[in-house]
C-alpha cells in the first residue's frame, strides 16, 4: 500500500520542462531521499505533491485514492506537512504565532487563546533545543532556530507524510542531530518522509530509499543502501563514474596557507559590537584561506559584515594591506579591496530583476565608465571574462539573474566580487544550497583565488568543507574567539572539540 504516489506527472514553466513524466512512490514509514542537481526539479515535484502547483499532466494518488490538492492548505488538512526549501515562516510574527498559524488554540468565544498558545509553543520548542522567548519576533532568531520552528510546525500536526526540502542547509551539527532524532521518531510511527538534501552523508545516515531526478526526469529509484555513493553522484550528474571518482569529497586541493612570512593583507583587531562580538581579532595573509568556525549564532556573519562595513561596530581596528580602514562602510570597504559575499544570496546578494551582465558589473561601474557614461565594450570585456572563468551557465548575459539556478546565481555574485579586484574575499556560506557540481566548481575557484594571492575568509557550516578548504580556522563562540586551529590541527575532530570546550569569556 502506497501512502503517496504520483504517476507520470509533468510540470511546464515558460521555457522549462521542470518535471517530465516523473513517477514517485512513498510508503508508510519510509524515509525517502529525493536527490538531483540544482534545477533537477526536486522542489517542483514537492510543490506538485503539496498543492502549490497543479501538474500539467499525470496523476496524484494519496492513500490509494486519486487526490487533488488545490492549495497547500488542502494538502495540509489531508495530512501532508511540508518544510519548504526557503525557510517559509513569517519573520515579523512571534515564534508562537508562526508555530500555530492557522490552527491557533481558541477559547470558548472563538478567540485565540494566547496564553495557551505561548505555553504550548514553549513546550514544543524546548523539545527541539530552541529555548527562546516564544513571543519574540521569529525574524530575530538565527536561521537555524527558524528552521527548527518550521520543523516543529510541520511535525506538530497529525501528519501522515512529512516532506523536507533541504532542511539542513542552514542547520548546525547539533541541530542536525535533533532533526535526525525527529525523523527516526516519525519513521517509527509509520509516517512517510520525503527528504531532500545535497549533503550525501546525511542521506546515507537516515534514508532507506532514494529517487534521483535529472533535468526534470526520473533517472533512478530504489534502495539507497544498494547504491554506491559514487554511483549516486554519477547518476545525479549524468557523468561517468570514473570521472566522478577522481574528484573526492570536496574540490579543495589542499589547505591554502599562503606565504607564512608575508605581512597580513587583512588585520582585524578587537572588534566589538554589543551582544554580538567581543574582541574578535585575527589576521589573513595573502594567499591564505582562513576559516571561521563555530555554531550558528556564534557571530561569524556579524564578523564578516562588520569588516565589510555593513554591521555596526562599537570599536575595533581593521587594516587592509597596512592601511587603516576607519569607520568602515560598504563603499569604503570596497575601495579598500574588501569584497563580501553575504550569507543570504537572495535577499542581500543578487539583484534578481537585472541581467547577468548588469549584476556582474554593478560594483565596478565607475571603472568601466567615462564621465558617468557606461562603456558597453568595457563592461562586456569584464562580463565575458568572468562568465568564462566561472563557467556561468546563462542563456545570454542579458538573462535576468533571478531566472538562473542557485549555483549560477552564486557564481554571478562571485563574479561581481572578483570584478572589483579585491585583496580580501569574505565568503559567508559560499556553497549553501548549491548542487554537487556547482559546489565543486566554487570550491576549486576559492583555491585558485587564494593561489593568486588573495586573502580569503571562509564561513561554512559544512565542517568538512571548512577543514579541507582552510589553512587555518578561527573558532568563534558567542562572539568570542575561543581558539585557532593551525597546521595539522585543522581537522573536523579538533574543530568539534574546540567548539565544545567550555569557554571562559575574558572581558
Amino acid at each position, binding site marked *: 500500500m502506497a501512502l503517496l504516489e504520483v504517476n507520470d506527472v509533468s510540470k511546464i514553466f515558460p521555457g522549462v520542462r521542470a518535471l517530465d513524466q516523473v513517477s514517485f512512490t512513498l510508503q508508510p514509514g519510509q524515509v525517502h531521499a529525493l536527490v538531483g542537481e540544482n534545477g533537477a526539479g526536486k522542489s517542483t515535484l514537492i510543490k506538485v505533491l503539496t498543492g502549490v502547483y497543479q501538474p500539467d499532466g499525470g496523476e496524484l494518488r494519496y492513500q490509494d485514492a486519486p487526490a487533488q490538492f488545490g492549495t497547500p492548505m488542502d494538502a495540509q488538512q489531508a495530512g501532508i506537512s511540508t518544510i519548504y526549501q526557503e525557510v517559509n515562516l513569517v519573520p515579523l510574527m512571534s515564534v508562537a504565532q508562526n508555530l500555530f498559524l492557522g490552527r491557533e488554540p481558541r477559547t470558548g468565544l472563538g478567540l485565540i487563546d494566547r496564553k495557551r498558545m505561548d505555553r504550548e509553543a514553549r513546550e514544543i520548542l524546548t523539545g527541539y533545543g530552541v529555548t527562546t522567548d516564544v513571543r519574540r519576533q521569529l525574524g530575530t532568531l538565527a536561521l537555524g532556530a527558524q528552521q527548527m520552528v518550521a520543523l516543529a510546525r510541520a511535525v506538530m500536526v497529525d501528519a501522515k507524510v512529512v516532506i523536507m526540502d533541504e532542511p539542513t542547509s542552514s542547520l548546525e551539527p547539533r541541530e542536525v542531530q535533533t532533526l535526525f532524532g525527529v525523523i527516526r521518531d516519525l519513521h517509527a510511527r509509520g509516517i512517510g518522509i520525503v527528504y531532500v538534501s545535497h549533503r550525501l552523508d546525511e542521506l546515507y545516515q537516515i534514508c532507506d530509499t532514494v529517487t534521483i531526478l535529472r533535468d526534470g526526469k526520473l533517472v533512478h529509484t530504489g534502495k539507497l543502501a544498494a547504491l554506491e555513493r559514487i554511483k549516486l553522484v554519477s547518476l545525479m550528474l549524468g557523468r561517468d563514474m570514473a570521472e566522478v571518482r577522481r574528484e573526492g569529497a570536496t574540490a579543495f586541493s589542499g589547505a591554502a596557507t599562503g606565504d607564512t612570512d608575508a605581512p597580513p593583507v587583512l588585520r582585524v583587531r578587537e572588534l566589538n559590537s554589543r551582544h554580538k562580538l567581543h574582541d574578535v581579532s585575527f589576521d589573513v595573509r595573502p594567499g591564505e584561506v582562513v576559516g571561521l568556525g563555530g555554531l550558528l549564532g556564534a557571530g561569524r556573519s556579524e564578523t564578516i559584515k562588520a569588516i565589510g562595513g*555593513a554591521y555596526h561596530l562599537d570599536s575595533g581596528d581593521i587594516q587592509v594591506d597596512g592601511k587603516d580602514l576607519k569607520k568602515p562602510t560598504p563603499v569604503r570597504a570596497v575601495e579598500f579591496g574588501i569584497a*563580501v559575499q553575504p550569507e543570504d544570496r537572495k535577499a*542581500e546578494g543578487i*539583484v534578481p*530583476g537585472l541581467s547577468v551582465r*548588469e549584476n556582474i558589473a*554593478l560594483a565596478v*561601474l565607475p571603472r568601466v565608465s567615462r564621465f558617468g*557614461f*557606461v562603456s558597453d565594450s568595457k563592461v562586456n570585456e569584464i562580463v565575458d571574462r568572468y562568465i568564462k572563468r566561472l563557467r556561468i551557465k546563462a542563456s545570454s548575459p542579458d538573462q535576468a539573474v533571478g531566472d538562473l539556478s542557485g549555483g549560477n546565481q552564486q557564481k554571478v555574485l562571485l563574479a561581481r566580487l572578483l570584478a572589483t579586484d579585491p585583496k580580501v574575499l569574505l565568503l559567508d556560506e559560499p556553497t549553501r544550497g548549491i548542487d554537487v557540481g556547482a559546489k565543486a566548481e566554487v570550491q576549486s575557484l576559492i583555491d585558485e583565488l587564494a593561489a593568486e594571492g588573495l586573502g580569503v575568509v571562509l564561513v561554512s557550516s559544512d565542517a568538512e568543507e571548512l577543514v579541507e578548504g582552510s589553512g587555518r580556522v578561527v573558532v568563534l563562540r558567542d562572539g568570542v574567539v575561543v581558539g585557532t586551529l593551525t597546521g595539522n590541527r585543522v581537522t573536523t575532530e579538533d574543530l568539534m572539540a574546540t567548539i565544545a570546550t567550555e569557554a571562559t569569556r575574558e572581558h
Partner: protein
Amino acid sequence: MSTETVAARPLADAAKIKAWLPKYGVYAAIVLLVVYNIFFTPYFATWSNLRIQLIQVAPIVIVALGMALVIGTEGIDLSVGSVMALAAAFIPLYLGYGVVAAILVALLAGVAVGLINGILVARVGLQPIVATLALFVGGRGLAVVISEGKLVDIRNQDFLYLGSGDLLGIPVLVWIAALLVLVVGFVVRRTVFGRRLLAIGGNRPAAELAGLPVKRVLITVYVACAVLASIAGLLSVARIQSSDASSVGLLIELSAITAVVVGGTPLTGGKVRVLGTVAGALLMQLVIATMIKHNLQPSTTEMVQAVIILIAVYVARERKTR
C-alpha cells in the same frame, strides 16, 4: 509528432501575444483610441489638434519622468505638485532679475525640496510616501505664503516664449519635454547613475553590500524628480502666462503616477520604462481629450479613466517571477 506541432501553433501565438501585450499594450491602446477618434471626432486628425495634445501633455510627461525614476527605486514622490507651486511662486519674484535668474531660482527651489525628500528617505529612513507627504501638505502652503496668495500675470515675452513659442514649427514646450525624455532615457540606460538606481530598486540590501553609494543615489533621484517638477512648474507658468501657486500642479502627482504605471513601470522598483511613461501620459491625455471633445460630464470621464487604467495595468502586469 505532426499533431503536436499543429496543436502547439495557436498556443505559441497566444503566448506570443501574452508576452507582447505587457510591453506594447499601451501603444496599442493609443492606436485604438486614435483610430476611434479619427472616425468619430470631428477635426481630430489635424496638426493643430496634435499640437494641442502634445502641449497639454508636456508638463505631465516631465513630472512623470521624475516620478518614473523615483518609482524605479521603489519609492514614490507625492510632493511634485507642491514643487511646481513653489517654482511658480518664485518666478514672478525674480523675473525682474532676468529670465535666467528666475529659472535658476525656481530650479533651486526644486533642488531644496528634493534634498529634503531625499534625506528623509535615504538618511532618516522614512518610507517615501510619508516622507513626501509632509512636503505635499506643507510645500504648497509655503508657495502660497511666498506669493502672498497673489496670482501674478507674467508679461515677460522671453519667458512666455517657453510656454507659447515655436521652434521649427514645433512648440518650445514640446521640444523641452522631448529633450528631457531623451536625457532621462539616456541616463537610465547608459549611465552609472541609471544602473545604480535600478539596482537599488531591484534589491536595496544587495546594492548596499555591493558598495554602491545608495544614499547618494537616492538623494540624487529625489532631487532629479523635484527639479523636473520645478521645470514643469515654470513651463506651466509660461504657458498659462500667470503664476498662481494655489492651483498650478494640483493633483498632478496622481496623473504622473498613473502615467508611469500605465506605461508599464512596476511600483515595485528595479525597472524604469521611459518611453512607456510617455505613452502612458499620452494615453491618459487622449482619454481626457476624447471625453471633452464629446462633451461628456466629469462623472463619465472619471469612470472611463478608472476602467482604462485598470485595463492598461491589467494587461501590462508583471508575470509572476519566482
